[in-house]
């Protein structure tokens, strides 16, 4: 085998310029996939991280039918006390769950006594929320001595754009007016503790209050939780955790639904488009490799018909001739991939020296591209397999040549 490799490599460099051109083309394709993949994966990871770590959580648990009518923020689709206790017990026992945060979500009117607007509110236990969405505090425009106490009773974290519209500032008093599930309207005065940047763009009007204030405002005896956000220990285990929790909690007779962030955020579609784009670039790479290797190997076989006749006449078995040409294709793929991977990773490293900063919606994204090792291995494997596949037909043709015809070829 060693000798076969040696001959294959030397044959590859027989026509240096041609080999160089072809490998450059393949290497360029590999670089393209690595750099584009690095940027796209990094963009996706950052965006998903922002969404899940600052607002959504990785998973959410609701009462059945809640997500379907989430735009209305219904207060009648709550998780009843015994159900809530069971869910919390399951979450405590799950090996995948790092933290969870019960929430009451509702719509209200906010007034500065001169102007009124509408607002969506999440009433939370600040410590639990901070553990579940650790990035949330980064959106708050205020130095927080204790992030676990980012909201206290009597305070409201008001959305930045709404506060600009109402001309409010930190410390101002506002009144919240909300209708509870029985249809009773109630009001509650609160003070603005800080502003919070919206993660969803200019239209976002999401604020936070303490769950005790929600109890008062909505006239609840006990907090009537409508949503539990869940933070996983390892985001890569999202699907496993989702399936496990769903299996455990969602029985036919139960009234619970479990959703992953992908089912709750429109960004999941963008993430899927990013994945699709990466796939398209990979398909382009496969096409480049397929055409390049097929072309060079076909030329190689036609140029060396007489030589094939010679080695066949000497007694080289057809299978070994096949292997010789497959090896050449493989060596070409390996050489090109190695060069492509080295340059591609080098470019990513250079990009990391000066991360690209930009705003996506209202989100500040700092793009420091990186590519997971498994992606690099996947790209390398694809190129190798396609190289062998592309060499197959020319190699097969070479192995099937009759020595007497090949020797007579001029």
């Amino acid at each position: 085998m060693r000798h076969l490799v040696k001959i294959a490599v030397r044959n590859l460099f027989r026509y240096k310029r041609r080999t160089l051109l072809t490998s450059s083309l393949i290497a360029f394709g590999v670089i393209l996939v690595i750099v584009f993949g690095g940027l796209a994966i990094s963009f996706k990871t950052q965006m998903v991280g922002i969404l899940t770590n600052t607002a959504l959580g990785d998973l959410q648990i609701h009462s059945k039918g809640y997500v379907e009518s989430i735009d209305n923020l219904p207060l009648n689709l709550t998780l009843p006390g015994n159900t809530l206790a069971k869910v919390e017990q399951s979450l405590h026992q799950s090996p995948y769950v790092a933290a969870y945060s019960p929430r009451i979500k509702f719509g209200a009117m906010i007034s500065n006594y001169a102007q009124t607007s509408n607002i969506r509110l999440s009433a939370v236990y600040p410590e639990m929320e901070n553990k579940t969405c650790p990035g949330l505090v980064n959106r708050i425009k205020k130095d927080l001595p204790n992030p676990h106490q980012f909201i206290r009773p009597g305070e409201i974290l008001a959305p930045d754009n709404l506060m600009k519209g109402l001309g409010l500032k930190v410390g101002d008093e506002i009144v919240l007016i909300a209708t509870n599930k029985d249809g009773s309207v109630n009001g509650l005065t609160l003070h603005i503790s800080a502003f919070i940047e919206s993660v969803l763009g200019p239209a976002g009007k999401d604020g936070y209050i303490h769950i005790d204030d929600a109890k008062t405002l909505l006239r609840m005896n006990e907090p009537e939780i409508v949503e539990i956000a869940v933070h996983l220990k390892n985001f890569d285990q999202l699907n496993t955790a989702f399936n496990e929790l769903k299996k455990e909690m969602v029985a036919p007779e139960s009234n619970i639904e479990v959703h992953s962030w992908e089912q709750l955020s429109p960004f999941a579609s963008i993430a899927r488009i990013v994945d699709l784009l990466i796939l398209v670039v990979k398909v382009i790479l496969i096409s480049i490799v397929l055409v390049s290797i097929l072309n060079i190997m076909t030329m190689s076989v036609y140029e060396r018909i007489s030589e094939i006749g010679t080695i066949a006449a000497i007694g080289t078995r057809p299978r070994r001739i096949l292997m010789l040409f497959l090896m050449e294709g493989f060596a070409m793929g390996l050489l090109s991939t190695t060069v492509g991977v080295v340059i591609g990773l080098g470019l990513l490293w250079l990009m990391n020296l000066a991360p690209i900063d930009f705003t996506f919606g209202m989100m500040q994204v700092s793009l420091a591209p990186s590519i997971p090792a498994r992606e690099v291995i996947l790209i390398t494997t694809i190129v190798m397999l396609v190289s062998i596949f592309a060499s197959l037909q020319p190699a097969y043709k070479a192995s099937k040549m009759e020595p007497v015809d090949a020797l007579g070829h001029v």
Partner: protein
Amino acid sequence: MTLIRLEHVTKVYHTGEVPVTALRGITLEIGKQAFVSFIGPSGSGKTTLLNLMGVLDKPTEGNLLINGVNISSLGRAEAATFRANTLGFVFQNFNLIPVLTVYENVEYPLLLVKHVPAEERRRRILTLLEKVGMVDQKDKYPNRISGGQKQRVAVARALVTNPQVVLADEPTANLDHATAFKVIGIMHEMQKEFGTTFIFSTHDAKIVGEAEILYTLEDGVLVNQETKNRN
């Protein structure tokens, strides 16, 4: 002792609309350690006959037995193994592998065809290169040596597997007269030293004189056989 036996061998090519008969009912026997030449004008069937004896092609009719094996019964892979074990080839255009050095070209059949241990390989290659006078050039690539030198390397490559028969189709056609004689001389020496049967075809009347047994072909028919005692 008969090494090669041809019994009423006919070869017909069906390449165009009209079938072409290259050999017609050839019957002959070649013994071990013979030094045989086939002569005849172009198109007389010399190359076809050498191809058949080289198990590169099969007769349309008749039997061709080498070492008692009927070559018509061999499949592609079996024929390759048979060639590797029994035959050596010297070609008109030398047909050395350009990416391999002189040493590696001679080594090739031992590596890819016959798996001979490294030490034994080295001994055999150097012995043969020494005998053909190419040991000093062993690290050169074929494009760095002359035509005569290439053909000497080709002879060494043909002999390195200790074949019973070496077939050479017009081995001196691309060489000047003096070099051609040298190459034939080397082949003759090897025949004596290793007991290998050499069968070659040629146009060159002077080279023909070197053969011990001379067959003349015309239009695919064996028209004459002449045996000489060169000693």
